[in-house]
C-alpha cells in the first residue's frame, strides 16, 4: 500500500462524520481496515482520532471538500482497496440507505473510480455480507 495511513484515516473519518459519532462499531471497523492494509493498529487509531477531531465541526460542504482533498492523495494503484475500506466503514451499521449510496458514489468519483465499477463493487459487497440490510426508506423517515 503506497497511500499514507493518515490519508486513509481522513477518508474514513469523513465517512463517519456523516453519522456523527466514532463509536465501538466504527472503531472495530477501523481496526479491521488497519489489519487488512497491514498497518499498525495503534498508529492507525491515532490517525483516526486526529482525523475525527478535524472533521467533527465541519459543515456538509466543508466535509465534502475535505474528503475530495484527501481522495486526491490516494495512490492510483490503491483506489479500489481504499474504496472497499470506505464501503466497509460506511456500511458498518449494517444498513445500506439511499443517502449512503449517494455518498459512496461521490467518494468513488473523488477517487477517480468509474461509476459502473463502484456500483459493481457495492453489489459484490452486498452479496458477500448477507446480514447487510438494504433499506428503501428515506434516511430521516425511519422513526
Amino acid at each position, binding site marked *: 500500500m503506497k497511500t499514507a495511513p493518515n490519508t486513509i484515516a481522513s477518508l474514513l473519518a469523513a465517512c463517519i462524520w456523516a453519522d456523527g459519532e466514532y*463509536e465501538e462499531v466504527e472503531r472495530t471497523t477501523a481496526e*479491521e481496515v488497519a489489519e*487488512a492494509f497491514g498497518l499498525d493498529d495503534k498508529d492507525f487509531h491515532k490517525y483516526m482520532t486526529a482525523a475525527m477531531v478535524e472533521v467533527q465541526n465541519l459543515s456538509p460542504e466543508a466535509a465534502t471538500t475535505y474528503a475530495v482533498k484527501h481522495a486526491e492523495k490516494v495512490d492510483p494503484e490503491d483506489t*479500489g482497496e481504499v474504496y472497499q475500506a470506505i464501503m466497509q466503514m460506511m456500511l*458498518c451499521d449494517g444498513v445500506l440507505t439511499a443517502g449512503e449510496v449517494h455518498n459512496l458514489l461521490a467518494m468513488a468519483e473523488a477517487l477517480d473510480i468509474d461509476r459502473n465499477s463502484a456500483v459493481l463493487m457495492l453489489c*459484490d459487497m452486498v452479496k458477500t455480507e448477507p*446480514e447487510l440490510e438494504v433499506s428503501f426508506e428515506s434516511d430521516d423517515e*425511519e*422513526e
Partner: protein
Amino acid sequence: MAVKTTAAGKMDKRTKEYKELKARLVKARAAKAKSGAKKTQTTLKKTKSGKVDKRTKEGKAICARMAKARKSKNSLLNRIKRLFR
C-alpha cells in the same frame, strides 16, 4: 409402569394407567397456565418497516457484534484479496 398397548402399538386408552397419565397431564397443564408463563417480548425498537432500529443502544450493540464478526472473518481482507491481489 407397564402401559398396555393396542395391536397397533399405541397406548390403550381404556386402561387405568392411561387414565392416570391423562389426569396428570391435565393437572400439569393447569399448573402451567396458572403460573402465567409469559410470552417472551422483545424490547428492541423497530423501524416503520419492522426492522431493528440500529440507532438505539440495543441496535448499536448488535452492529458492534456484527462488526466484530466481520473482523474475525477477515471480511474486508478477503474481498480485497479476491478483487485486487
